[in-house]
């Protein structure tokens, strides 16, 4: 009985027809390919991309050099040096993130008590040399200055979940 069933299956090319039907369905269905960079996929407000350091509205940098991000970073990508500034506050004299080491886990952002280090929605950045992806404090602050509006907006949306 089984033999006869298989004979007809092979003889009538049933699998081929099934396969072609699937191909045909997708051939005429709406395409989901995104034409990057002209087109972009939607991003969530918690997207974890390029890092930035934020400032307060007064222009004062937020970072207080507590080193919690450095301590928690599982990839050990963050390197901080601290010193007392003339006004008696503790500030970083060096704040480097090695993006070639970073695994974008977002722990730094999570650990930050003052929301200074954040991950932005920017994912299109590149380096031509290895060293280009070693972000220093000035570069991170520049990122923050450029993207502050979006960063602040995303934090505001997320606020009720935090």
């Amino acid at each position, binding site marked *: 009985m089984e033999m006869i069933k298989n004979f007809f299956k092979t003889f009538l090319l049933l699998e081929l027809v099934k396969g072609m039907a699937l191909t045909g369905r997708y051939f005429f269905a709406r395409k989901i390919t995104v034409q990057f960079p002209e087109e972009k996929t939607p991003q969530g407000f918690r997207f974890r991309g390029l890092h930035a350091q934020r400032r307060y509205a007064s222009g004062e940098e937020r970072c*207080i050099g*507590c080193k919690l991000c450095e301590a928690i970073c599982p990839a050990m990508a963050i390197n901080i040096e601290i*010193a*007392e500034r003339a006004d008696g506050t503790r500030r970083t004299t060096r704040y480097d993130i090695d993006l070639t080491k970073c695994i974008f886990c977002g722990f730094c952002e999570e650990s930050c008590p*003052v929301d200074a280090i954040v991950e932005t929605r920017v994912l299109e950045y590149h380096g031509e040399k290895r060293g280009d992806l070693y972000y220093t404090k000035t570069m991170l602050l520049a990122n923050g200055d450029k993207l502050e509006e979006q960063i602040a907006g995303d934090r505001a949306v997320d606020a009720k979940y935090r």
Partner: protein
Amino acid sequence: MINVEIDGKRVEIEAGRTVIEAAQLAGIYIPHFCYHKKLSIAASCRMCLVQVEKVPKPVPACATPVSDGMKVFTSSEMAVKAQQGVMEFLLINHPLDCPVCDQGGECQLQDLAVGYGATSSRYGEEKRVVLHKDIGPLVSAEEMSRCINCTRCVRFCQEIAGQMEMGQAFRGEHAEIMSFVGKTVDTELSGNMIDLCPVGALTSKPFRYTARNWELSRRKSVSPHDGLGTNLAVQVKNNRVMRVVPIENEEINECWLSDKDRFGYEGLNSGERLTRPMVKQNGKWQEVEWQVALEYAANALSQVASCAGATEVGALATPHSTLEELYLLQKLVRGLGSDNVDFRLRQADFSADGKRAGNHPHVNLPAEGEGANASSRVAGGEPRKFLPWLGMKVAEIGTSDRLLIVGSFLRKDHPLLAQRIRQAVKKGAQANLVHSADDDPLMKVANKAIVAPDAMANTLAQILKAMATEKQAATDASLKGIEVGGAAAAIARSLAGGERVAVLLGNFAQQHPQATQLQLLAQRIAELCGGKFGFLGEAANSVGGHLANALPGAEGMNAASMLAAPRKAYLLLHAEPELDCANSQQALSAMYAADLVVALSAYRHHAVDYANVLLPVAPFTETSGTFVSTEGRVQSFKGAVKPLGEARPAWKVLRVLGNLLNVAGFDHDSSEAVRDEVLGGMDIPAKLNNALQATTQPSALSPQPSGLQRVSDVPIYSADAIVRRAAALQKTRDAEEPRVAMRGDDLEKIGVSAGDRVKVTQGENSVGLVAAADDSLPPGVARVPAGHAATVGLGAMFGNVTVERA
């Protein structure tokens, strides 16, 4: 002994102890803030509330004495609820600034809030604000809002440091911890408040905001600053010493650290560090490779030794050097054929050298042996050499009931030993002092005799004579004609009434020009009252230098004679002769007169003027080595960080110098090998020997009337090369510009009032200083500190000076 049950665990504990101690015995942790085992009980934080059976309310474990059959529950519902409630109250006013706080990560409040607190706060009102205070350059009180008023710092100052310098002002919500208005906390133990503070209210000023505590790795070390051998944890980050904290050792430093030990590390990172070997050519310093510098030094040394004779080579080392360094130095010098090596740089009286040990059975020869005569000999039958040490274990000081301390700036020279004595005095011991200055030791002094330096021997003779009468012993012929004064009689009476008597000679007595006489008299006083007799060791290796034999033999010259009769070549190990030697000007002129000075130093010091070769060597954190403490305890340590720049451990430098000079026996490949060569098979306790066999010279006992006598202390933060360069310590009141202090009436005689600038002349040398009045000094005495840049222009630490209006 009674039985207590804690959380179902039965422990046996003596009556009178507290529940928290019983819990500790049972291995159960009870959260606490204000309780500290070395301090009195305040029961102010209420964190240690526990439930006790049949007691309706929770009770504080730190202040509740145990009773037989007591049942304690530390984690019952009642206890947990009470602890959570207390934690909530403590956190009401505590700022949530842990990320900014230096204590964050090692904070008791932070830890206990996680362990015993609630997950969130119910308090939304304004928090209390306490203004910051300035309590000196060492301890930061910048954020007093963090204070939880446990009063540990207050109790520490009062009970351990001996003087109430911190206190709690105002009441209730307004209670604040502060120092006296406008006053700083000047105790030499102030840094311990940082360790005691369970929150971040009192933190270290030099360490402030330089690192977070979890980044630091912890390396064990031993303090080089004084003879106690304090155990340190050197905390290191990026090959740099970031701070120093104590390692608890009940037999040595308990859980304390003096400020010198704690903040001295700043000197290790000083800008004055020598980092490259340098050779002076045509009057100009040139940085060279090690090979070049070492060959230059070796050639120059061997040239002096062969042309002018080996005895023209002299070596001076500080007693702060390690055992290995001292041993290799003396081996090198002896290999060259010279016997001129010494580490007792501040000593003036060397007449004990070469004296045989006495056979005083009572003078606590450590090896109790085969009778009085035999005990003065070691197994080989060799007569025992004189080797001054503490004469007892450090811990025994605390259990003495009568003490005689001769010539010691106790608090400044031995901060932690002074603390031990203070505790003994609190327990009822009587402290008696004989000294030339009346600095407050911050403890109750039973009797004191404050006399001019030349009358010290006489005063001791008086005590001895009074003691002989007291004990009905025969007096020595040399004591004839000594008239016993009231103070001496009182001291003798006090000592005679004791069971565990300790007679201790301080730095001042050891540096005294009649040191041997003082020592003989003190030894006999101890003998008569059956007490122990010892020396408070000045530096980390005051005993180790003797074991390493870094002192001249019968033929050699000692530190003083080497400088009095200048040599052609000097080898300096860590020494800054003008600051470390007894006679600054003599040392300096000897250095200038020398043809060759090879300075092994961690710092670019005054030697740049007179030396020919500067070899950068590593301080204690950068080398392995051994210190033998004043109680004869051998403590080896490893380097905590790599030597700075091109600096190298001094034992390695000396070893290579030995090779280059073709001296035999310089093939050690580790400092441990050197140590084993020195101490291997040595019975150290049998070597320690304070007993001298000599007779007192009656001439020493009668003070010659003379002019104004100099009394010198070495200021606490000028005592060694490292602390001299510790920036924060140099800002303290103890490091203020030295003044010449005299009695008010003595000042009046020369027509000077306190605050005037005066000219102090000693022999041919003079310096300008500010005069100060101090009526506690004996008459005819001018107190001029030594070992300080401002008084380098003067001569010996003792002797006559004249003071006149500048």
